[in-house]
């Protein structure tokens, strides 16, 4: 399944990184401790978090993630979106909670 498919199926907003919408998603990871994501998220995962700090993009790039999904209606900062555009890793958004998003994503690709 591609990033663009989950955008459509989960009704996600695309904040930035449109160039990466064709990336393949291998699975998901949900965590707000960046040090944890750094050690445990798998390549190609979609990462669900409420953290919006620009370090999110550095971690996403480091772990070769396919997309970041910001939950709870939080808005990523301008510097986070700029970094996402640069890396070509989409930052998506939803008003759903991390729990709600994880459940829906799991039924799609889990």
């Amino acid at each position, binding site marked *: 399944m591609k990033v663009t498919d989950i955008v459509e199926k989960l009704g996600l907003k695309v904040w930035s990184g449109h160039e990466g919408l064709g990336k393949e998603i291998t699975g998901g990871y949900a965590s707000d*401790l*960046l*040090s944890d994501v750094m050690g445990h998220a798998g390549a190609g995962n979609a990462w669900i978090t409420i953290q919006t*700090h620009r*370090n999110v993009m*550095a971690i996403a790039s480091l772990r070769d993630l396919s997309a970041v999904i910001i939950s709870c209606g939080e808005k990523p900062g301008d510097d986070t979106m700029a970094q996402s555009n640069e890396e070509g890793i989409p930052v998506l958004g939803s008003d759903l909670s991390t729990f709600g998003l994880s459940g829906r994503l799991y039924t799609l690709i889990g």
Partner: protein
Amino acid sequence: MKRFRADLHIHSLLSPCGSLEMSPREIISRARSKGLDMIAVSDHNSTWHCELMVALGLEAGITVLRAAEVTSAEDVHSLVILPDEASTRSFQQWIDSRCAYLPHNPVIFGDQVVIDRNEHIIREITYFLPAALKASIDEVESAAHRHGGLFIPAHIDRPAMGILGQLGFIPDDLYIDAVEVVGNPGDILYPVIRNSDAHIPEHIGRRFSEYLLENPSFTELAKALRSEGGRQIIHPER
């Protein structure tokens, strides 16, 4: 120039996690008996015991600096040490403008009270003080510096609530005056200090730093963090 011992991270009973024994008077008396020359009172997102502590410190012959342990939106704790009463009042107003005012339950988290010199309760805080502000760590850093303060990410080597745990690494465009560690300084590129993060009287001074200064004061501390004019951090050693 002389060596001075300082513990710049101490919670009073105003912090919900601070024991009710942590009255300003008790903190001063413990700090003196531990041989500390300078302390800072650093409650969660609050500075309401600073003036009383400064006054009691003056009487007891120990320097008290005004500070707060601020929680930014990423759940990162940072110490902000402020130069004087006016800047502290103004910084508190900034904190209040960014506060989420989440409900507090003293039975679960502990009491949050402000007391006077006679240890009478003069105010009870009804929202949860340690909750994350609606302000990013960048905003906390710039507010700290706008008020002439020092910005010191706290306990960065703890797994959570420190900048490394929450954010994975230290963003290189933050202006950081020093970092506080609990363990060994390691090969961190910033000035490193250690403090007790005491919540009970017995913990005051369990970790401290030693500085080479003209006198124990905010201005001299700021110079030591910049290694200016011979002032420096001499413990922990690098």
